[in-house]
Each structure stands twice: as C-alpha cells, then as structure tokens.
C-alpha cells in the first residue's frame, strides 16, 4: 500500500498581498509568513518589527541617485532571524510596499478587535 504523507496543516490568513508578494498570519503559531522573492519565510513579532525597521532604513533615494558601477543590491539581514534577503532596487520598492500595507492591515485589525470585541460589553 502506498504511504501518503500529509503535510501538517498550517492555517494562514492573508494579511496583505501585492502582485509581488504576500503576507499571511498564522494564529496558531502567533507569527507571520512572508511570501516574497521566491521564498516563504516565517517571522515572529520581534523579527517582523526588525524587518520593518531594516526595510524602512534603506535609503531608496540614495540608491537611485547612485551612479557608481556597483550592483544595486541591498542585503536585508536581521539578527537572530533565519532569513536574509538580497534585493535589487525594484524588489526593495516592492517589499516596502508589502510591509507598509501589512502594517496598515494589522492596525486595521487592531481597530476592529477594539470595536467589535474589546469595547463591547
């Protein structure tokens, strides 16, 4: 008889999606999965905050104005996190859009929780 291995079920809720990537939340694991640059990476609260900080810290204007003949690659490395991104300028813009949208949605989720559950008797 053939053995069928079933992958453990992970329930994802989509937080935000663009044409370049998506962010999902796992309520069970209290974390987020980011589908970007060809991989799905897991981020807990601390790492997600660090990722946002790292992405926002990239000086896009400086990269665009840079006329040196070096590759326009930026390495987004987060301490104590298993993942790192090596991104070109377009990908930097794309991940920025993804992260910004994600945090707007998380903020909206907080407002909804307040209004629907926390502030009603």
């Amino acid at each position, binding site marked *: 008889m053939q053995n069928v291995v079933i992958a453990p079920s992970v329930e994802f*809720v989509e*937080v935000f999606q663009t044409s370049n990537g998506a962010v999902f*939340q796992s*309520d069970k694991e*209290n*974390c*987020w999965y980011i589908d970007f640059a060809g991989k799905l990476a897991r981020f807990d*609260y*601390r790492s997600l*905050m660090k990722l946002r900080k790292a992405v926002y810290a990239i000086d896009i204007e400086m990269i665009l104005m840079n006329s040196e003949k070096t590759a326009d690659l930026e390495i987004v490395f987060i301490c104590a996190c298993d993942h790192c991104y090596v991104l070109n300028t377009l990908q930097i813009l794309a991940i920025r859009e993804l992260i910004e949208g994600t*945090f707007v949605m*998380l*903020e909206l*989720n*907080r407002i909804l*929780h307040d209004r629907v559950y926390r502030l009603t008797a």
Partner: protein
Amino acid sequence: MKDITRVQCLLSTEIEALLNQQIKKEAQSSSAYLAMASWCDSHGFDYSSDYFFKQSEEERMHQMKIFKYVLDMGGNAISPEVTNIQLEFNSFKEVFEEALEAEISVTQSLKNIAANCYKEQDFVTIEFLNWFFKEQREEEYKARRALELFEVIGEEGTGRWEIDKHVNDIEYNSEA
C-alpha cells in the same frame, strides 16, 4: 485573525520611538551633567561639582525608568549612543545656563510625547509620564534658582565662591 501586535506590545510604534528618543535625551543629559561636574571640579567649584554629579545620577535614573517601562510594555528599548557632549565652558555662569537649557529641552520633549499620547489615547503612558512632569517642575526650579543666585549674590569679589557654596542647598519642597 488574532491581534498579535497588540497582544505583544502595549505601545504604538510612534510612542515607542518617541520614548526611545527620550531615553537618548536623558542619557545625553546625564553625560552633559557629568561634563559640567568635571568642569566645575577642575575650576575649584567643588560644591557645584557635587550638585552636577547628583544631577547626572538623577538623569541616569530617569533614563532607566523609561527604559524599563518600554521593555515592560513589550517594546524594544534601545541603548542609546551619546555623542557631542559639551566639555568646555566659557564661564561658571554659562555652566548653569546650559543646565537650565537642557532641563527646558527635556520638559518640552516630554510635553511632545504626552501630546502624541493624547492624540492616540494612550492613557497608560500618560499616567507613566505624569511622574516625569512633577520631576521636571523640580529640575527646572533648581536650575532656574541656581542662575538666580548669580543675580542676587553677584559674581564680583568672592561672589562666585558664595554662589558655589549655596548651589548645593537648593531644594524644591512644594507639595502641590
């Protein structure tokens, strides 16, 4: 969908950033006071030097208070880098003028944080900040009173020696 970000941290990103900025400001004040203590000591104003040592300790204590609050609320407290401390002063009076200016700057910065807290209804942080506002009343009073001594005693003759002797006696006892 669970509200994970709120479960993890009470503070909003903006308030957390402002509090981290304040941690840096307090650290800078502490170092600035230490520089003033050093200047006063090396110019023979030993009582004033003691006064500034005490002030430096207090600012450090303020810094730690905010640092612990940010951590306790689930935020990320950042150990600050302190640079550009003024080490030289043109006169004894200038030291106290700088001290008052630093205290005013701290008060204004705290007011700015509170204003932002009111905007996003972060009453928990406002309650935390109230202790600092009371503290700033004392800090500004002491710094202003020290400068006042330069007016009432005068710097002529043994004036500066008298001022130095009285700086350490300045107290603020208002119970209000």
